[in-house]
Structure formats: C-alpha cells, structure tokens
C-alpha cells in the first residue's frame, strides 16, 4: 500500500471535507488520519491516506486536481515514507511553552529559532487570544517534544532570556499539568 499526505487550503465553506473524502473513497483509498483547522475563515485540512498499490502519486494528483477544478481550493499531495517501525524519537516528554504579552513582529521566528537550535521539535503552535484589546491577551503556545538527549536547562534559560529581552511573560510547563487541570 502507498501512503500519501494531502493538504487542502481555501476559503472555508460547507462541503470541503465531503468533496475530498468522496474522491478518495471512489479511488479506493483509506483515510488513515485527518485533521483540520479554520484560521480567520481560511480552511486548512490534512489527510493521510493509504491507497491501493496500483495508484501512483501522479494518478492520485491528477484525479484530485481534475475533480476540484474551479473550487478555489489549493491542493498539494506528497508521498509519505511509511515509518511505522521506526522507534526514533519515541522517548521524551511534551512541554508547553507559553509566551504572554503584546504582539510584535518576529515573535514566533525568534522563539522557534531557539527551539530549533536546541534540536527540539515543535509539535504544535497556537496563537491564543483571550479577546478584548488588552495586550496581555496575546498568548503564543508552542507544544514541544523534548527527548532525553536535550539539555533542557540550557533551552529553558535561553527561552526565558529571550522573553525578558522582549518584555514577555513566559511559562514552561510539562503537558501533564494541563491534563491534570482540564481533562478529568
């Protein structure tokens, strides 16, 4: 079985998921994983599919693109290397790094650079707004996966130093604290 990742971007409206999933169904593909989000009315969807052996990347791309012409959707398809047996990076812990303070240009660039320099993977990035005009209502949250070989003290110190430079409040907390408080 071949495996592909399909990304779908476009203005949100009813029927996008239905359209994509029905094309895949008719091609005999199995939807293994899917996720979607809506950012300021823009739809972004991610689908990982397994296809029958006779369906190549080219066939899949042509079929999907022909059936979504004139829909305004931008679609990318890539082959995915099946790494089910890979055990790399499975040991580690997830932390949430949260910065609170006035929005400013380059915020994500600066923090993600530090995180990348320490070879830490950002699993999820989220801008959280509490609403209103309070500059402290701007919250950026980075969910990172830290493997045992990472020098966490050095990483956390670098992040805290950067937050201080930018006059931001920063919190670095293991994800379990969010689970303990919110998931009962």
């Amino acid at each position: 079985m071949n495996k592909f990742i399909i990304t779908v971007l476009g203005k949100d409206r009813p029927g996008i998921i239905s359209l994509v999933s029905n094309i895949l169904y008719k091609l005999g593909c199995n939807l293994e994983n899917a996720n979607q989000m809506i950012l300021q009315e823009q739809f972004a969807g991610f689908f990982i599919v397994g296809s029958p052996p006779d369906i190549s990347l080219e066939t899949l791309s042509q079929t999907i693109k022909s059936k979504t012409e004139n829909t305004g959707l931008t679609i990318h398809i890539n082959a995915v290397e099946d790494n089910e047996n890979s055990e790399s990076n499975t040991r580690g812990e997830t932390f949430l790094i949260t910065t609170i303070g006035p929005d400013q240009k380059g915020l994500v660039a600066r923090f993600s650079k530090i995180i990348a320099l320490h070879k830490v993977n950002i699993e999820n990035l989220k801008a959280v707004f509490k609403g209103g005009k309070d500059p402290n209502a701007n919250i950026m949250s980075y969910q990172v996966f830290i493997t045992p070989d990472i020098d966490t003290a050095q990483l956390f110190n670098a992040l805290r130093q950067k937050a201080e430079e930018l006059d931001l409040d920063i919190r670095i907390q293991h994800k379990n604290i969010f689970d303990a408080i919110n998931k009962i």
Partner: protein
Amino acid sequence: MFDDNEIISTIEMVKNENLDVRAVTLGVNLFDCISHDLQVFKKNIRAKITNHAQNLVETCDAVGEKYGIKVVNKRISISPIALVGACFSSDQMVEIAHELDDIARQVHIDFIGGFSALVEKGIAVGDQALIDALPRALAQTQRVCASVNVATTRSGINMDAVLAMAKTIKKAALLTADEDGLACAKLCVFSNIPQDMPFMAGAYLGVGVADAVINVGVSGPGVVKKAIERNIERNQGEQTDPTLGSIAETIKKTACKVTRVGELIGREVAKNLEIKFGVVDLSLAPTPTVGDSIGEIFQALGLTNIGVPGSTAALAMLNDAVKKGGAFASSHVGGLSGAFIPVSEDLNIANAADKGFLSLEKLESMTCVCSVGLDMVPIPGDITVECLAGIIADEMAIGMINSKTTATRLIPVPGKKAGDRVYFGGLLGEARIMNVPNHTLCDQFVKYGGRIPAPIHSMKN
C-alpha cells in the same frame, strides 16, 4: 494540543490566582531510632531524617519547575516525640527539640512537626515530660512545631490536659514576650488530630503509617475566589441570577482541579525520592497576600465581610464543596481537607476582626463547620489560665461531639490588650488582638479535671 480555554485557564490559575502547592511534607517514622541513651537517640534521628530528606528540597524545586507550579514549603513530620522519646526528662526533651531544629536547618526545610503528644485518655510519663518541655522548646527553637491532642470522639476530653495546655501556652508566650508570644504560633491543641496532615503547625506522622511517606498540602483560595466571581459574572452576562447551588458546583469543580495538581506533583516527588505517596490534603489555606485569602471568598459570595450573619452558612457550603471536589479528584485525600480561617495569616480576616465584623464567638461558631478552629488568634496577655482553658475546652467539645478535627492556636500576647497590634512576620502575618469577653474570670469548671466522657455516638462497634 489543548484548546484555548484549557491553556488560558491553566495559565491564569498559576499566574494570577496564586495556585501553588502549599506544602510537600515528608513523614518520617522514628520508632526504630528509640534508645534510652539521649546521645544515641539524637544520632539515630539525625541519621534517619537526613537520609530521607537530604534531597527533599531540590526534588520539590525540580518538580515544581517542571510543571510551573511552585512548591512553596517543604516540611517534615515525625512520629510523636512523646512516644519515641518517652524515657527522657523534660530537660532532655528540650535538647531533642534543639536537635530537630538543627536537622531542619541542615536539610533546608522551614518547619519540622511532631514535637507532639497524644493525651486524650491520659498523660503518660513521656507526655508529661514533653508538655513540661514545650515552653522552652518552642521559645528556644525556630523550626520546631508542636501539637498535643487532648480529645477524641471515642475517648472524650482530657480536662487535665486542657488545663495543662492552657498553662503551657501562657508560659510559652511569656518566654517569647519580646516577639509577641511567637512560640504559641507553633503550638496547636487538637481534638481528633489527623495523623497524615501535611500542614503545620499540627503535622505529625501517625503510628499507623509507613516508614516514610510524602503528603501534599494544596491550597488555592485565590483560584476558588476567581472561579466564584467568573460564575457570577457569567450569569450577569446572561441576565440570570446564579444560585448558591451553581456556585457550590463551581467551587467543587475548582477544588477538583486544584487537588489533581497536588496529586500530580506529590506523586512525582514521591517517585523521585523513592518514598511512598500518602495523601493530598486540599485545604484552603491563606497567606497574608491580597488575592490569596479565605476572607475574600466570603466577599465574592456576596457578604460584606467574613463574620457577618450568613458567614457560617457560607463557610459550611465552601468547606463541603471543597471536600467533595477533593474526594472526586483523588482516592487518597487525607489530613483536614477543608477551609482554614487563621486570623493573623489572612489579611482579609485580620481586617474583618479589626473592623469589628468578626468576633471570637463568631469564629468559634464558624469552626463547627470548617477545618481546624480558633487558629492564629492573638488574645490579651492577661487572660487567666482558667479562661484560656475554657476556650480550649469549648473548641475541643465541638470537635468531639461532631466527630471532626478542631484545634486551637491561641496566642496570649504578653503585655498587650484587646485592640493592640501584633506582628509575627512572614506567613504568620499580623493582626489586632481580639477581645475576649470575661477574660479575667477564674471559674472552677476547668479545675475539676478528669475526663469529659465520650459522647454516645462514639459507640459505633
């Protein structure tokens, strides 16, 4: 990934609502340290306590750092010294207190509790030696906390012990007159003392528990207050009136969240120290900081101040909701798990007393429905031993009859009278001395001694 509300509510609880782990308390059993030789006994207890506690502070700090929740106090509770040191004289007991004080300093903890005696049914030789030693032991040390249990629901009230404790408190106050009787802030008199409480000054390690155990005290009055305010604001936004039922539900859910935080951190500390985890005690315990107050919860509930009519009902609801939330969150809830109302340790409660909203009599009635009792209450220094014993006996009776823990931590401040200010500093706070009506009476009642028998409902077998 967590949704926006989950991230925001967690951050708010820590950043703006003073959520913390108030105490991680390491319980250490000292029965295997017993010796008739004082030097050997001191050597044994030092070796055992430091062996278990040498990494306590750094482990708590590391776990607190990992979760972004501060472990404010790291403490130790030990087996009652009156039992493990029963063969020693009162002078030797004072020496033991010094040794404990030094051990506490060595392992960088702020308090060690368990300079204690259990005398609800009678005073044994070791108990008497410890009670005699208490004034000097507490006056000459900084980190040693003491408690004496004088009553239980099953045994009744030992009135000889009540009178002895009244005399002891007066002596301890006099020995620390230049510090407004500070020694008394480290001494609790209990009815139905729990054996796994992580909070000071009453913490000790009971005889029925493991060799070493980690108990956790979680607080969070600021979190509860904010949750109540949000509930009321939400209802106002929807133009509906919140009911007390819905507010109680909010408190319960909040208490549940706070307890889960405590258990998460406590279990990790216990695991890292390779010590058994004991209980979570979710007690709303204040600090003298604005936003970290039990008194402010009463105002959030719509009362002018703690102490006004309605306060006992509000406290009953609060205490019960906290217990229910805690019990749902953890199967191992212990200690007191309720709400404390320590006067000098809570800025808002101290102010309520100062303004005349809260009297000693109202405090006593409120202790019928909440944890502990007359806690950190400064009273006139010239109160008679008989009157002081009467106040203690009243509080013990509330605990005995209602099958609950009650305690007194009263501070008769030498040379000062009702209305004068006292300052204890730090977490112990400051307050104005409360008026004690008829405080110079010398009534015979408490001097008859003997035991007030256990109530009929103690016979449950």
